[in-house]
């Protein structure tokens, strides 16, 4: 079985949750012996782990016929793509894309991440996809998130192979209901044109069915998982006098940071030996600093700014409580990562991961009292901390990407008949 996947980001260059999920799923699926995955992403950096899949940079796919020498190709993109493959793909240019600005190799220069001209990038990505689709050699197309739906559709139209789209989030999650019509149109078209839709939680599945008018039988939930952290034992929790309660993520409307501040205020009214940390950055950060000051808890409430890589894990491991009060979260992998390092976790019921977790406290994002109560219980009652720590770790160890990969494979098998 050969799958052609369209993705947008891939570790170690992480812009959002999509990278982690793409990595986990492809690695999980690669455990199946007959599975071959080609993953197209706009701009690989060359330091990605390609041991279990083939990564194709859309910025190395020729869309306009140019005739560079072998050495020139090797020099310019050799770290990402073999020059022979470049020539192979060049033979499959069927359309005239000269309207798009290309470099001397006939490739499009993609920016990485989420630049301002995102819609233009999406349509350029579509052009790159057409060349790959003409080159063929795959059984099924799998598009990750709305940015890659147009590419997936184009590839399907060219090759006639079935298209699976993977909904990691919808615009309803990102905007608290005020959807961007352009984004909605792309998402809707992707879902309508697909042969099957995979959602990361039942919550997202309901959104897809209700808000995007998809038939129930076409939508299947495959919950995300988390990769075992090999070095987790190196993170030793340092005993402190004050307990640490952590919020970690983008400080935006979607993540519900204001509820965290209010809950902190509730807890600090009763007990003094707790500190609250808001890690991350975002457009609501200044507002939150202001709110903490207004509530008169600034001496116990700390901001770290944006954390990356190991800092994130270190922060999670040093915390006594991790909390994710998201207003709407399609899945949310970070609670699983917190549980992996043994940190008791509180998640909102509006998060997809709440559907599969037993050893976590679940609260409504707006229920500040319940949130405060849960925080208080974990820091005050040792049995609560211990049960959640041990139970959570064991539970997360049983949630594997291999299992998720098998579910995706079952969907492939079903649509390929």
């Amino acid at each position, binding site marked *: 079985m050969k799958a052609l996947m369209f993705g947008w980001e891939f570790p170690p260059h992480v812009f959002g949750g999509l990278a982690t999920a793409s990595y986990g799923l492809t690695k999980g699926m690669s455990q199946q012996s007959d599975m071959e995955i080609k993953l197209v992403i706009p701009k690989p950096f060359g330091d990605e782990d390609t041991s279990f899949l083939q990564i194709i940079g859309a910025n190395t796919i020729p869309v306009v016929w140019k005739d560079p020498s072998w050495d020139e190709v090797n020099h310019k993109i050799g770290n990402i793509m073999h020059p022979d493959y470049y020539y192979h793909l060049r033979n499959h240019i069927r359309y005239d894309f000269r309207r798009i600005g290309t470099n001397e190799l006939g490739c499009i220069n993609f920016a990485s991440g989420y630049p301002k001209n995102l819609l233009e990038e999406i349509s350029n990505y579509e052009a790159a996809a057409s060349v790959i689709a003409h080159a063929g050699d795959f059984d099924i197309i799998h598009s990750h998130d709305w940015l890659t739906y147009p590419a997936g559709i184009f590839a399907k139209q060219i090759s006639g192979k079935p298209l699976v789209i993977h909904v990691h989030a919808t615009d309803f999650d990102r905007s608290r209901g005020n959807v961007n019509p352009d984004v909605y149109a792309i998402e809707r078209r992707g879902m309508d044109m697909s042969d099957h839709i995979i959602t990361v939680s039942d919550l997202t599945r309901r959104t897809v069915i209700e808000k995007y008018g998809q038939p129930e039988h076409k939508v299947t939930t495959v919950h995300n998982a988390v990769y075992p952290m090999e070095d987790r034992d190196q993170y030793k929790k340092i005993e402190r006098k004050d307990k640490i309660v952590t919020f970690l993520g983008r400080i935006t409307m979607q993540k519900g940071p204001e509820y965290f501040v209010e809950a902190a205020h509730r807890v600090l*009214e*009763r007990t003094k030996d707790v500190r609250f940390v808001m890690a991350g950055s975002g457009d609501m950060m200044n507002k939150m600093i202001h709110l903490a000051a207004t509530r008169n808890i600034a001496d116990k409430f700390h901001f770290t700014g944006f954390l990356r890589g190991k800092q994130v894990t270190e922060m999670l491991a040093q915390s006594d409580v991790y909390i994710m009060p998201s207003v709407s979260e399609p899945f949310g992998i970070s609670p699983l990562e917190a549980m992996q390092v043994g940190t008791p976790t509180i998640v909102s019921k509006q998060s997809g991961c709440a559907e599969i977790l037993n*050893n976590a406290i679940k609260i409504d994002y707006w229920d500040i*009292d319940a949130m405060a109560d849960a925080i208080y219980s974990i820091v005050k009652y040792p*049995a609560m901390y211990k*049960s959640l720590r041990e139970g959570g770790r064991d539970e997360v160890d049983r949630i594997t990407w291999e299992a998720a990969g098998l579910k995706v494979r079952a969907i492939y098998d079903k649509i390929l008949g």
Partner: protein
Amino acid sequence: MKSICLYFQLHQPLQLKRYRFFEIGADHYYYDDYTNEEILRRLVNECYIPANNTLLDMIKTSGCKFKVAFSISGTMLEQLEFHAPEVIDSFKELAQTGCVEFLGETYAHSLCSIYDEDEFKQQVKKHSEKIESLFGKKPTVFRNTEMIYSDEIGEQISKLGFKGMLTEGAKHILGWKSPNYLYAHPYCKNFKLMTRNFKLSDDISLRFSNWNWDQYPLTAEKYISWISSTPDTEEIISIGMSYNSIGILNNGYSGIFDFLKALPYHALMNKVGFSTPSEIMDKKKASDVITCSFPISWADEEKDLSAWVGNDLQHEALQKLYAVGERVRLCTDKALQYDWLHLQSSDHFYYMCTKHFSTGAPAHYSPYESPYEAFMNYMNILSDFLQRVDEQYPTSIENEELNALLKTINNQGSRIVELETEIKKLKKNATKKTEKK
């Protein structure tokens, strides 16, 4: 002749209200009155009243051949007295037929038999007194909370004057033995044990209205034929269940009431009688002894205590609660005593059970969304309760010292009188002496 020994258990805990940590120290009322009344109303209307009427009818039409036993927790009796006195009257009427026996229980349906020996004794006594005051007869056979039993508990109960105890016919205790015999305690030789036939009990309580069961529908005829087809030497069929199996777990439309009504006829036709536990223990001799070094219960497949004391949450809650047992017993504060009993109800710990996480079995009935939430709420309430206990007497004083001080205070009246008479005597002597001079 075979006899069926049928007994029902009645208990309903007072459900705790949503109690947040910022209420600790400010709010000392812990119960969800609305829910509690609602639950009790439903139990009374759908189970207790119709079931009591059915049983009374069965006793009368069978010419007192039908017999039944009840174990009702003290806290349940209190709730009934308060909210539904008509049920108490109906039980009194049943008691008057002489075909109904009331069994001993722990007053608060608590786990004190495992955690607090003194509390256990006190609750058993308190419960016996309650039963005697309501139904005119002291219980002589004991049935512990959740049928928890071990050799040690049996010994304690024997010392309290009971002649026997009902317990679970757990396979790991009985081994190859059948539950349908009377057994004895290994070293209190006169103390008898009746083991519940859980297969036949669950046929009614759990499977009666299960459409997927291959024996569905269960008729009285079929049920009695199973009983009469057991070997002739197996004379005691002990069938016990929660009373709400009649009318709630199996609702009125399932035909459970008609099933019950038809039981005596088919039983007597097949020469199967009915007895109360104390009749059996008086008449029959024990066939063998059974030893039980670790406590068993009637719960789940495991028949052990793991549903109540199986995880860290339950362990911590119970430890914290029973740590103050001695102190609470020294208090005379009525409200504190009341809460002490209600907080002990085994159900609160059952809600904290996490067994179903790993087995994938369906979660037990619980008013909480998760065991963690049950624990949080309980611990908040318990924290407030412990604060109140501390306020009664400062923690700096040891229990023994406190006891001595309390004794002094309580006896001060008589001591003053004693001293006064002595003063009078001395004064008299003194005046006499001066007179002599």
